[in-house]
């Protein structure tokens, strides 16, 4: 089936669901079913709305349909020495670009280059009325109208299915090197922040089991100078590559086990929270993965007190994934959802239980 025919079919399904007021559950490759508060409704499959629409490496922009597999995108970009700089995790070979953007999860380079929304230039969405609307565009700078193409990043589909995206791409760094240091978690948080404030080409950081690792990416003179400035042990290239891949794609054992896990998004300088358990730190301290038996209410309260947020991954059924929203924010978000999806068809309750 051609992507255009597939889109027509998706649209028909939306219109039929709208007529019957039946909820729909948007699905790309189906690799992130675990994400969100709940999944209800008939599956709305976007996988066949796939394919590259336009890619001109000298524009640093790729436009593609939402069902395009992430692996296909990255392979294509690599042939031209480019990449998705936000290093999105892939939870399986069927992971699609639409799912990546809707999930809004970025990888190890998040703290240094930005998250997914920083690379989304445009998006086309299917509304609850079955209409395709385009926001943003295919150019780097665009402030015409509200920036709704970036609003879909991390929306978990509650505004409707993304059908097409334009993304900014970047050159693959000429050279990468990883340094390792023996540090406690508290020391690592301070050092990561200190190093991040120096003009060094830091592109990733992690701490696990008393080993702090930082990755430097750039041209050889810059990477060499940074290695000399920071010291530490240079990790063999293969070992370093395997490590960052395992963190990025959640294959590292702490992340890979589908058992209850906390994702703590905190101000980067937050000292390690007084919680027992097994900890992995990323993003120069701004992201912390914790496996613990501590009381969930206590975990959430400590994260909130530090100015951050806690999300429960792989929790028990009925257990909330995300922190609740303040009432003013919830009111605005309820009206925003209604603006795109007046009947509440799409991914009902998945991002916020009440929406």
């Amino acid at each position, binding site marked *: 089936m051609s992507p255009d025919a597939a889109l027509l079919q998706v649209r028909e399904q939306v219109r039929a669901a709208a007529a019957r007021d039946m909820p729909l559950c948007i699905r790309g490759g189906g690799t992130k079913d675990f994400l969100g508060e709940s999944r209800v409704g008939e599956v709305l499959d976007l996988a066949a709305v796939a394919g590259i629409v336009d890619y001109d490496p000298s524009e640093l922009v790729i436009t593609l349909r939402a069902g395009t597999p992430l692996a296909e995108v990255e392979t294509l970009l690599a042939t031209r020495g480019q990449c998705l700089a936000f290093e999105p995790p892939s939870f399986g070979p069927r992971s699609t670009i639409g799912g990546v953007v809707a999930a809004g999860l970025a990888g190890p380079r998040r703290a240094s280059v930005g*998250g997914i929304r920083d690379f989304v230039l445009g998006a086309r969405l299917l509304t609850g009325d079955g209409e395709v609307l385009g926001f943003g565009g295919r150019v780097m*700078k665009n*402030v015409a*109208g509200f920036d709704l193409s970036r609003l879909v990043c991390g929306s978990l589909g509650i505004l409707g299915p993304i059908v097409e995206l334009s993304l900014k791409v970047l050159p693959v760094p000429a050279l990468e090197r990883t340094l390792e240091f023996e540090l406690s978690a508290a020391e690592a948080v301070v050092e990561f922040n200190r190093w991040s404030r120096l*003009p060094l080409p830091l592109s990733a950081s992690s701490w696990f089991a008393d080993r702090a690792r930082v990755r430097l990416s750039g041209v050889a003179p810059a990477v060499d*100078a940074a290695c000399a400035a920071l010291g530490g042990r240079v990790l063999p290239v293969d070992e370093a590559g395997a490590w960052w891949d395992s963190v990025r794609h959640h294959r590292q054992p702490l992340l890979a086990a589908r058992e209850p896990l906390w994702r703590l998004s905190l101000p980067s300088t937050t000292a390690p929270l007084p919680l027992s358990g097994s900890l992995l730190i990323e993003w120069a301290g701004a992201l912390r993965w914790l496996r613990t038996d501590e009381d969930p209410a206590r975990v959430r309260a400590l994260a909130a007190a530090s100015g951050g947020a806690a999300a429960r991954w792989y929790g028990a059924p009925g257990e909330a994934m995300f922190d609740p*929203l303040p009432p003013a*924010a919830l009111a605005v978000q309820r009206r*925003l959802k209604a603006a795109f999806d007046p009947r509440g068809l799409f991914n009902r309750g998945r991002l916020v239980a009440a929406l």
Partner: protein
Amino acid sequence: MEPSPLSPERSRRRRDVLAALAQVLPSDALLGSPGELVPYECDGLSALRQVPLAVALPCDEAGVVAVLGVCRKLGVPVVARGAGTGLSGGALPHADGVVLSLARLNRIVALDPLAGIARVQPGVRNLSISEAAAPHGLYYAPDPSSQIACTIGGNVAENSGGVHCLKYGLTLHNVLAVRGYTMDGEELICGGAALDGPGLDLLPVVIGSEGLLLVVVEITVRLLPRPATARVVMASFDDVGRACDSVAAIIAVGIIPAGLEMMDQGASAAVEPFCHAGYDLSAAAILLIESDGTAAEVEDEIGRLSKIVRDAGATAVAVSGSEAERLRFWSGRKNAFPAAGRISPDYYCMDGTIPRRQLARVLGEIKRLEVRYGLRCINVFHAGDGNLHPLILFDANAAGEWQRAECFGTDILELCVALGGTITGEHGVGAEKIGTMCSQFSDGERAAFAAVKSAFDPAGLLNPAKVIPTLHRCAEYGRQRVHAGQLPFAGLERF
């Protein structure tokens, strides 16, 4: 110039609004006499003017909330304003509304050098953030040409860029959080010092929302380490197409320069007598390419950049040898707008963005439009990201010239849309480009913008009649633009 007298009805309204505001603001925070109001009748787009009912200048957050409360109760539109340097009439007052100046909320609340963030009030000038961060080796990256004067609140409203945004991003990429109040007086926090949180991410919607969604009272910005060194390559070309080709070639080899700017001959000729930047006046186009990083990194990149521009046919290549020389190379580019003001009584600055590969084509089309409208246009571009700033020169006192300039500008924006670009890259839609919004967006898309506006501001009192055109307005625009049944650039495929 004395503003024309108000209708009795509007006079009464002004009296009532002033009386209500006087209940919540000290007298030095409220302007209401005609002479006091005139300085607020326009922003940086002086072609559009409107005297407001009143101007409120609260000095703290409580004052902002109080003004919103009074205006909500009386159903009075509120137009927030920073330094008034915006170029699209975003801060153009509403005839029946209050201008809410945030200029007195000008404190840097906190600066955390270890976390690399600063919390600032909206009236803080862009440049003063970098000045405050400088002792820590940090700076705030977005640098619009008006950075000496423009405020961070205005930058947030417009999602401002600058000459370094190709590498370091726009305001959006450098702001972690904004805290503000909706017209209902509800506090709303978007984003945070953490990199993500629960629910929809409202930050990208609020940044660049041109004062339509909420009044921002505090902004958390990201501070970056100041690069150890920076140098500029200045390359001359005898053909604009070759200059464009070298821009593509630089990107193609994987270099993202810190800045990548182009000026045409007209622009160089306008700034040179004024700035003495050392520009090659015989060149059809000049490229300014900045490299930053460690000394060794910059050395390496400058070498590669110089080779690329030479291979692409540059007729002359100069590299800045000192920080003073680097600043001199930039001085002309950064002063292009004032220079246009020196060589012409008035100028009209456009802000379209196009896919970079269309640059030479758009320049050719602008040349033809100069003839058609009998007006000169000089061009400066953020060439790295395809953002054009054609400056149309005109004399507002010459009959018909402003109207011709406006049509000329609209044609350029229509062309940008037709080539897959946008009507505004960084200056915003404001009051100015509300007509061309009809070309870029469908009825359904514009309806979605209106619904988003209502989601934040159900009463529609914050900066009304800006950014989002009504259906009626678009029908009117369509009638104006269709000449003899023919749309401009009808032969081009619309993206």
